[in-house]
């Protein structure tokens, strides 16, 4: 494998944008800000004293933007999205949704989790109805859920229970269950992390389809660099120890996206940049590097596999 730091980047710089892409970004930034964080931070009290999980996060997410968050393990990307959802308290700064501070979870911020969180005792349709059932009443919620199930192609599974569904289907339903509430923003915490590569690629296209057709802003956490570039308008790169924003990258890959773009020059340029940011030597890597295997030949010298 090539070391991205050692070799000079071939091809275009990741900051170079075609006129069409630049125009898209101008339009994007002209749209109103849905979610804003100001000097957002989180400090845990642990046995060995205070641990800074995240600090000084300043972020403005515009309406119908698709923002991906990546970073090495321990960079606090999960903490960030959980604070935005209100599932965890922040110890510094503010989270503003439409300019109003966020305190605790609410239906204005939908969330899709990495683990499967469909309610196992409810059918697919009742799961999707869960949010609107209390606000709209049973029958209106049922009609709305039917529409959403057709939209995500799960209409014929309306009466199935979650344990009868595949992982990909479960996450489709989880997305519909969050979107039916018409949240201002959809927070996704590594939603495809547990899926196999093929299903994952299908779900990415599916998610982009939904995003294109529904007025929704997305913040998407992933540890898969290709997934981040493929989906995002902008990629927020975090670094660990302490968790901080390292760079906010505007992805120059034009839309609509398709799997062919995975090898396009713009895509590769961003990929190289992310590689160099994410795989910088850190304290944690140092620990791993201390493990030096000392392999000696344990087979017959003539018994070669390469």
């Amino acid at each position: 494998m090539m070391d991205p730091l050692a070799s000079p980047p071939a091809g275009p710089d990741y900051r170079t944008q075609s006129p069409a892409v630049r125009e898209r970004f101008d339009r994007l930034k002209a749209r109103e800000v849905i979610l804003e964080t100001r000097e957002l931070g989180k400090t845990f009290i642990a046995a060995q004293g205070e641990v800074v999980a995240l600090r000084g996060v300043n972020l403005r997410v515009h309406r119908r933007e698709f923002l991906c968050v990546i970073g090495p393990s321990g960079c606090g990307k999960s903490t960030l999205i959980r604070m935005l959802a209100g599932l965890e308290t922040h110890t510094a700064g503010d989270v503003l949704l439409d300019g109003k501070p966020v305190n605790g979870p609410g239906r204005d911020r939908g969330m899709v989790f990495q683990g499967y969180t469909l309610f196992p005792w409810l059918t697919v349709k009742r799961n999707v109805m869960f949010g609107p059932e209390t606000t709209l009443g049973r029958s209106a919620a049922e009609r709305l859920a039917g529409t959403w199930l057709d939209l995500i192609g799960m209409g014929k599974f309306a009466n199935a229970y979650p344990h009868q569904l595949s992982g990909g289907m479960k996450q489709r339903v989880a997305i519909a269950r969050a979107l039916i509430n018409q949240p201002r923003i959809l927070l996704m915490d590594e939603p495809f992390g547990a899926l196999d590569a093929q299903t994952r690629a299908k779900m990415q296209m599916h998610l982009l389809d939904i995003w294109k057709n529904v007025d929704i802003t997305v913040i998407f956490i992933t540890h898969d660099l290709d997934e981040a570039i493929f989906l995002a308008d902008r990629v927020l790169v975090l670094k660990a120890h302490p968790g901080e924003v390292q760079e906010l990258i505007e992805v120059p890959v034009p839309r609509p996206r398709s799997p062919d773009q995975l090898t396009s020059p713009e895509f590769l340029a961003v990929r190289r940049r992310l590689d160099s940011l994410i795989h910088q030597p850190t304290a944690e890597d140092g620990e791993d590097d201390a493990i030096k295997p000392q392999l000696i030949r344990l087979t017959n010298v003539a018994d070669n596999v390469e």
Partner: protein
Amino acid sequence: MYAISRWFGVRAPLSARERLVLGIGAFALPLLFWSLVSYVPFLWHPMVRISEPGGVDYFQPDMLVEAGVFAAETGNMRQQNLALPAGVPANPVYLPAPHEVLRAFYTAFTTRPPQRDAPWLHESLLHSIRIIFWGFVISSLIGVPLGVLCGTYNVIGRLNEPFIEFFRYLPAPAFGALAVAILGIYDGPKIAIIVIGTLFQQVLIIANTTRKLDFALLEAAMTLGTSRLRLLTRVVIPGTLPDLYRDQRILLGWAWTYLIVAELIGTSSGITWFITQQARYQHFDNVYAAILMIGFIGLGTDLILARLARVFFPWDRPGR
């Protein structure tokens, strides 16, 4: 050889047929053992049932004497040139043969009780079932809601569980005399003993089961706009219900184990009264039949409840 090595595959799955055969075997093996001990004379049979007293003045027909005594007396008679006693090997009176117990299953129900106002066996059994029922219902009415609250809200849990943890070590029968003093000598104290024996375990077990609910489900519900108070009714209770039901089945079994002690408190009653009466007259076939009846009622109830669970909770993953 292949078949036997397969038996010891760790957690190797069993076919439906194998499960059935082994399940029958679970009951057939103890029964076979009991039959061997009962019907094969040289296996145990430490006693001799006298058929002819011969010259021994204290021997009676149908009397059970130890084999050693019988041999000694036979030797004595031979020395004194008197008629020799005769008898067949037999087991002690406290181990009746399977067919005798089986017969007792029927005759115990058809035999008039010795005193005219004493209850029939089926009345005794029903009385026992009533005690268990009320004891378990009262315990559950308090224990299940309290357990769910303890498992959901840490404040309530911490306020109750340390004391309950202490109280559950106090043996329920120790409260017998107290229960009689407060509740009289009839059914009240018996039900109280079952409640005391069940309730404290129940709160702790239900609380633990409630805590096992995946917290992510609660978080998901919160992000869908569920208020904190409604989480209890919309997520905690429906999400833990099949597991609570399973706990209740186990706890019902525990309630049965307190029955005999409970029924000895105050005036002896129910199946316990029947068992002690029959044991007093050495009708051990009836004693075994009564003990087995408790087992059959318990196992039968549990099987029915397990079947009902599949109807109540179609979404609960099979094989859990």
